[in-house]
């Protein structure tokens, strides 16, 4: 199986990147203003000198830097991301608690943006020389230039405050105690605005990519052949052009994953969506560096996993790609 060695190669690369991020994180913690022990003591509300010394010893802050780095790395490998003194919980528990909401939000936004983006891009390419094509491209440029958090706020203003159609924030109706299908429906209603606003920017990106990709494929010889042998234009668009134009979209979708995570921080902040993006905002507000860097690591992990997934899908979709990793 060539795929096994391929996947192993990707995993090896991903592990290297993750280790590098850990080292990077470690030095960032040390670059943070103030002695970590003093920060922790401050967070725990203590100022006594003996307590500080105890903390230093307990967390190995009295050791040399390489020893500390080793302790930090081996801690993370045992899934110990440290303790958040502000939230009084281990960082890992906090993140795992919030992860499903973020996966739901980004997953929904991804599907929405990909589906509508490819649709709009295809339409724009087919009508490249007509006004309707220009309208689609104009709109996509507009969404591309709009700050994500501002779209989110405007959506709340219009659809929640003025029209009162959709809930403005949260994951589900507080205190309603819905179960089963009612609960699913309730979450879905809360998901609409955040997923749409997060998806809008990426929809614009995919629209532009699909259009460019389709226009360049339509110049190729096999399309001319298809036209020459008299195939219906619709069939050529769908079976010849679109299929081939979608290949680069898969790769680019992988590259967008990182942006999506960043966008989630803003969207979740506006909509009070209880995911890791919102947690990152809370960590920022409380200067909770342990938590902040833990979340940063998880974001990178998510992006790398998603990149690996798209890479494998790409190679499955296009068997011509056989280059060694």
């Amino acid at each position: 199986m060539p795929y096994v060695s391929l996947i192993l190669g990707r995993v090896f690369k991903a592990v290297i990147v993750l280790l590098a991020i850990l080292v990077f994180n470690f030095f960032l913690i040390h670059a943070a203003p103030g002695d970590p022990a003093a920060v922790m003591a401050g967070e725990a509300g203590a100022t006594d000198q003996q307590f500080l010394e105890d903390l230093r010893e307990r967390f190995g802050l009295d050791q040399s830097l390489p020893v500390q780095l080793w302790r930090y790395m081996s801690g993370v490998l045992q899934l110990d991301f440290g303790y958040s003194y502000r939230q009084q919980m281990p960082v890992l528990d906090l993140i795992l608690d919030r992860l499903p909401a973020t996966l739901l939000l980004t997953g929904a936004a991804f599907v929405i943006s990909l589906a509508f983006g490819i649709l709009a891009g295809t339409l724009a390419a087919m009508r490249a020389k007509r006004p309707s094509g220009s309208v689609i491209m104009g709109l996509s440029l507009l969404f591309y230039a709009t700050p994500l958090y501002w779209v989110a706020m405007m959506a709340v203003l219009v659809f929640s405050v003025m029209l009162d159609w959709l809930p403005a924030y949260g994951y589900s109706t507080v205190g309603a105690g819905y179960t089963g299908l009612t609960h699913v429906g309730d979450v879905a209603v809360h998901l609409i605005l955040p997923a749409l606003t997060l998806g809008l920017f990426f929809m614009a990106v995919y629209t532009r990519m699909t259009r460019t990709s389709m226009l360049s494929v339509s110049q190729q010889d096999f399309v001319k052949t298809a036209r020459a042998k008299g195939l219906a234009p619709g069939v050529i668009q769908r079976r010849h052009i679109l299929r081939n134009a979608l290949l680069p979209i898969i790769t680019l979708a992988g590259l967008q994953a990182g942006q999506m995570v960043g966008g989630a921080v803003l969207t979740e902040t506006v909509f009070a969506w209880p995911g890791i993006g919102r947690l990152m905002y809370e960590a920022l507000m409380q200067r909770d560096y342990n938590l902040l860097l833990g979340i940063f690591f998880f974001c990178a992990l998510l992006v790398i996993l998603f990149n690996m997934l798209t890479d494998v899908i790409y190679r499955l979709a296009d068997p011509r790609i056989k280059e060694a990793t």
Partner: protein
Amino acid sequence: MSFCKRFAQNRGALVGLVILGLVVLLALLAPFLYPDSPWRMVQRPFLAPGEVSGFWLGTDVMGRDVAAGLAHGAWVSLLIGLISTVVALAIGVPLGALAGYFGGRIDDALMRFTEFFQTIPNFALAIVLVAIMEPSTFSIVLAIAIVSWPPVARLVRGEFLSIKHREYVEAARLVGQTHRDIIIKQILPNTMSPVIVLASLMVATAILLESSLSFLGLGDPDTMSWGYMIGAARTVMRQAWWLSVIPGVAILLTVLALNLVGEGLDDALNPQLARAR
């Protein structure tokens, strides 16, 4: 056709240039139109636009003049957008040039380094960097530059790869020019047009990034910025919609204008690649 003519053929680019010109004008005139600090409380809070003459965009939660904030914010946005792009170019161009010119192991090492930065989610990285370094204009510029140089390096590397075997480069090598001269005097000037196009789009992205950081409370606490204004208006959206709408429109127009200008530059500098319209 001359550069200006080709640029002017793209109507969107002209519109973009006009909007951008107005924003630059507003930024330059800010110290004269509103000599006072935009942080000063000058009227009752929550004045709607036009409610009191002289405050045509109203006042915010603290009674600060929104128009003054907008003008001073324009300066901050443009400045941070420009400087961080210049810093990103200063990192990306040399790395890409070295990787593309020398190839082999140097290329491998530099591209791995670039890929590493491309893999890390960039907004999350910018947040972490600014938070750790403490928010200031310096840390914001640095963080934006650090997350936005990789595309520059990749672009410049690609250009170098395609140009380094051209005849005039071979000729320069034959007459004994040093690597440094070949890179700087022969190849680099010929890679500039795509870099200029990319740079104009990077300024737009940098402005969006800066506003997003300020929105999250990571702006320089001494400067008034559009993102900060929107962030501060978030909790009072129901009472005072204009406080979030006005600066948002300002960001939207500026970023849109830069994108349009970028597209126009692309058409004008790479006429052979002019896209189907």
